[in-house]
């Protein structure tokens, strides 16, 4: 019998092998496949999708991103084989253990010319043959699906979307970043531009070395006629894959698969800088996308909402015990059929797939709040699917037309502002949406496998008790137990999912049926006004969930109608804005620095060998908002157990002692010049307009400004005063409306006096609203007026707030630090 089985397996593999030389990712790497053994077939399938599927975003990053959004990525700067050693320290990227530098011993590629300067990764023998031509068979086509669930309304016939539409490609050398052969690549043109197939210099270098020359802010990545050899796509893993806190690599530049986890969240990631890597730092677009500290990303930078609100990648652990909340949810649900004359906006069946239908209806459901403001509150699966839009999937098919064109100044123009993305239309029009949607249960199954990473296990101790002994030794005798009492009295009200009173609660209890699963989520996940917590409120002012905005359909109806926080100073802050979901303290020791923006704690930084990719800038300022001459040093990336623990301790000290925190605020470190209209002189006529924002300005004042409203109002206030009043009836008192009107008229008057070339300059600390220079070409506008009415974010200090516990004694604080390390 065994012999027959072996023969059958051999015959099967021979058939598969001969019919299909490409292989799914799990078959490309033995070491990766070895880490699959602990998962069920569904979990394994979900993991593979989460780590490798791009769902068609390679076109987004190659075409839509530079041509439509105006931002460019220098992929060679990130992924060049010769820069492999800086992947982690410069970009926080996790190196793929299976990739190698061409020419190295045992590397299948012998030269950089073969790989166009990139690392060689498994599957490239097939992929590289298709650079410059059609016909590539994606490894996802050989993806082995998880078992089909026959218990849903979609029946017992497996009609899932073709797995090819998951779009895996092969690794770039950085986990989560995937490459695809570009069929439009012209090898001769590339070599003419760059001098060699291995070089990208002609493509990526600025056209002039002088940053003051406009060509010094321009490169050929912005030339849409040049097609690079690869289209680079991004899997969810790009932000969520990280080093395992329980088993970190001895050398972060050379990890093994057993050091890598797909759900922990990459607290070192500089994905924001990556997204702006092809831009001059003098450009507005760089300021919009690339201002973030490690481990945080502004997911509304692509579907731009003019709120600079980067947040951490959530650690996905212990989700089986995540609190859920009753919400009114309007969404699509599986059904077996639609009426013949059904409105396709209410019921829709996939053509050619009998019984695979979807119905849209409102129901009350228990849903989690996963995002930091609960913006994805229509269900667990939908929250997962939404992540794919954050990484650019189905952009052209589904959502590019719903996000604003930053240059559209006419309010009647299409793409002036956001419009709601339609899930039903996206399902109809994007095969990759369906490919992901049909497998969401697998991804969810994978999510549910992740468990907290306990410090006692990370230290190789035998039991939690051994850790308590060690911590008592470190702090003081009985510290952990005393800390537990402080926690119960001071923190548990928000940071426990169990009901109070908390005196005798076991915060680390586990499920009797699964000792690896914690019973307490260590957070109540409830939404609280950011003004109550006091933390930097930018992330809470997300607006993409609102009615008429791009992700409206991913928010519950209750969220749309959430009560306005009357303490918010921003003019626009209703319709669900201004709230933060509480956070879980599970494995906090491994996830410092703290808060939604990693701002409370020491700054962390990589130490790349190439200074050009060292992105650390001190955010420390004095009380006047000026950069500190001698700021605290940043802490070098250190994913070791001890490194994480020391960072945790330092962050806790700053959390519990807010009076010793040095304020943090990202400032523009150079003048930002926005060329609105070019300088042109014809005869004696001189034209042009630029807006200058001087160095020293808080970056948030630039990238959170509702500049289109400002432009529209400058027109309306004169041409259609009634419409101007109607616009602000709900949001401003009559007195403030009058003040706004007067200020706008003053700016307008100043503009009308301008002649020839005009420079509009924003100024800090000026008392007049506008000030014209004597030469009539420079108009200075007081920023306080502009910000007060037109900024989406008026907070400035990024590490403020959460002062709970500051009144504890030093001993109590030490005890609390010891106890929280055990959670």
């Amino acid at each position, binding site marked *: 019998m065994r012999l027959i089985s072996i023969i059958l397996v051999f015959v099967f593999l021979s058939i598969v092998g001969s019919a299909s030389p490409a292989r799914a990712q799990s078959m490309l790497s033995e070491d990766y496949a070895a880490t699959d053994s602990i998962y069920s077939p569904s979990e394994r399938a979900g993991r593979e999708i989460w780590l490798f599927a791009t769902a068609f975003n390679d076109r987004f990053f190659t075409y839509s991103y530079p*041509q439509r959004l105006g931002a460019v990525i220098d992929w060679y700067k990130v992924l060049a084989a010769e820069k492999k050693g800086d992947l982690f320290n410069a970009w926080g990227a996790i190196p793929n253990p299976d990739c190698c530098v061409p020419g190295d011993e045992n590397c299948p590629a012998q030269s950089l010319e073969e790989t166009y300067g990139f690392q060689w990764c498994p599957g490239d023998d097939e992929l590289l043959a298709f650079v410059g031509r059609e016909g590539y068979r994606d490894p996802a086509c050989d993806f082995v699906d998880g078992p089909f669930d026959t218990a849903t309304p979609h029946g017992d016939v497996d009609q899932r979307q073709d797995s090819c539409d998951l779009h895996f490609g092969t690794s770039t050398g950085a986990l989560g970043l995937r490459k695809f052969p570009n069929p439009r690549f012209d090898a001769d043109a590339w070599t003419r531009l760059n001098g060699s197939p291995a070089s990208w210099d002609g493509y990526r270098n600025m056209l002039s070395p002088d940053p003051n020359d406009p*060509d010094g802010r321009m490169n*050929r990545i912005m030339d*849409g*006629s040049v097609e690079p050899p690869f289209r680079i796509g991004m899997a969810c893993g790009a932000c969520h894959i990280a080093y395992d806190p329980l088993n970190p690599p001895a050398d972060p530049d050379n990890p093994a698969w057993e050091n890598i986890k797909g759900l922990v969240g990459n607290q070192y990631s500089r994905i924001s800088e990556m997204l702006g890597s092809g831009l001059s730092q003098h450009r507005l677009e760089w300021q919009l996308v690339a201002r973030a500290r490690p481990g945080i990303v502004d997911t509304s930078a692509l579907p731009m909402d003019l709120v600079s609100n980067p947040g951490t990648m959530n650690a996905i652990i212990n989700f089986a015990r995540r609190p859920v909340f009753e919400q009114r949810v309007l969404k699509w649900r599986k059904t077996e059929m639609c009426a013949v004359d059904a409105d396709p906006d209410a019921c829709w069946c996939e053509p050619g797939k009998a019984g695979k239908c979807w119905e849209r209806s409102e129901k009350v459901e228990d849903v989690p709040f996963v995002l930091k403001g609960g913006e994805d509150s229509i269900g667990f699966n939908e929250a997962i699917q939404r992540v794919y839009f954050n990484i650019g999937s189905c952009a*052209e098919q589904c959502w590019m037309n719903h996000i604003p064109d930053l240059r559209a100044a006419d309010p009647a123009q*299409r793409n002036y502002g956001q419009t709601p993305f339609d899930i039903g239309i996206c399902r109809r*029009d994007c095969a990759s949406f369906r490919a992901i949607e049909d497998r969401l249960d697998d991804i969810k199954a994978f999510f549910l496998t992740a468990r907290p990473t306990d410090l006692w296990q990370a230290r190789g101790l035998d039991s939690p008790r051994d850790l308590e002994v060690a911590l008592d030794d470190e702090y003081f005798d009985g510290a952990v137990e005393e800390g537990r009492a402080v926690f119960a009295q001071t923190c548990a009200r928000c940071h426990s999912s169990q009901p109070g009173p908390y005196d005798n609660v076991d915060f680390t209890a586990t499920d009797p049926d699964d000792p690896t699963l914690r019973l307490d989520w260590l957070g109540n996940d409830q939404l609280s006004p950011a003004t109550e917590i006091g933390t930097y409120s930018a992330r809470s002012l997300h607006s993409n969930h609102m009615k008429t905005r791009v992700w409206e359909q991913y928010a519950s109806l209750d969220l749309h109608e959430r009560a306005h926080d009357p303490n918010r100073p921003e003019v626009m802050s209703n319709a669900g804005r201004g709230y933060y979901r509480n956070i879980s303290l599970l494995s906090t020791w491994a996830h410092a620095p703290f808060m939604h923006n990693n701002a409370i704690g020491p700054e962390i930084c990589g130490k790349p060998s190439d200074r050009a990719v060292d992105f650390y800038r001190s955010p420390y300022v004095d009380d006047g908002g000026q950069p500190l001459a001698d700021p605290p040093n940043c802490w070098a990336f250190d994913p070791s157990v001890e490194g994480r623990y020391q960072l945790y301790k330092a962050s806790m000290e700053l959390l519990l002692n807010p009076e010793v925190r040095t304020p943090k605020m990202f400032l523009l470190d150079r003048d930002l010049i926005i060329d609105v209209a070019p300088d042109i002189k*014809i005869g004696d006529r001189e034209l042009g307009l630029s807006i200058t924002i001087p160095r020293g300005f808080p970056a948030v004042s630039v990238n959170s400004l509702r500049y289109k409203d400002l432009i529209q109002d400058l027109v309306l206030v004169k*041409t259609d005063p009634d419409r101007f009043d109607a616009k602000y009836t709900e949001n401003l008192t009559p007195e403030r409306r009058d003040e706004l009107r007067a200020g706008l008229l003053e700016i307008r008057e100043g503009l009308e006096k301008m002649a020839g070339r005009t420079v509009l300059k924003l100024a800090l600390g000026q008392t007049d609203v506008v000030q014209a220079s004597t030469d009539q070409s420079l108009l200075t506008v007081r920023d306080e007026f502009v910000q007060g009415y037109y900024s989406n974010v008026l907070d400035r200090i990024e590490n403020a707030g959460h002062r709970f516990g500051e009144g504890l004694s030093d001993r109590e604080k030490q005890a609390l630090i010891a106890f929280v390390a055990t959670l």
Partner: protein
Amino acid sequence: MVRPVFIGILGVAIVLIGAAGLLYSGSQELVQATRPDVPFAPLTDDSLKDPDNPAKVFRVDFARVESDLPLSRADLMALTPDNLRSLNQEEIDQIYGRLAAGPIPDGAYLGDLFFPRGEEGDLEPRLEEIVGGFKGRLAGRKIEIAEKLGRALWKGKMFYREERVLRNFIEDFRPLEALIDNPDALLTANVPREGWLKYFRPTTNVWLVFPAKLYCGQSLLDGRRESIIIDYMFSDEIAGYQKGPDSLAGRGGLQVRDEIRMVRPGFYLGRAYVHKAFLLNFTLYNPEVAEAGAADFMGGGDVAEDCWIGEQARQAAVQ
């Protein structure tokens, strides 16, 4: 801020072409065309109300316009360069959103242009609606003049499909002479004449200026499928480039970027952007190609597509 943006853009356009006067206004027939009888979705989507801005205008999603009201081939045959001028901008946009790129053209295409028209009143230029309130700046008459001057001077585009480049042609460079480095080095070509003079002299010699690159790329209006992009940003690499005047359209100047989609063989609808801000519409028409391809097109013949056509089935009735 609005004023200088538009003044900057249009001011240059006016200065560029203004010196020409209306020397050639007789060469282009000004036909008061009737509106084409093709379906349109409502101009606004009134089901949407923005919580922050009740004055905000919403348009019907292109994906919905196309699936609910596809343009048949008969509809496309009913469109002409002239009758498109009778539509407001939202209607022009709805047509553009229901087109695909088609093949990258080859040879000479006669051009015409028109600024966006608003929806209120009698198709007033949209720019006038926006900036009319600014004293002394670009009142409607000036926009009208700019359009007339543009039409009088710019005659079309010469496509070099194999090289993936294009050059614009003008009938007389004298108005621009002061801007041209070396008038003697200007490239020239013979193209079909337009207007009533064509009955006497069917072709005319034109000057080729403002070269641009051609490629398939992103539409700045409708991301669901690619358009043919006419990109002036890196035109300094193209043979025959002269800094004066060609740089005016390039990356050191207005950063012009056009995009076109095919209405039917021989006829393209285009959009011109300056510094990525939408400025005007234009049409490109090659009578020979249009005539030769009409019967096959109406008969349901295949249309070549050089660019990515997206996933939403193009629902134009092909039969």
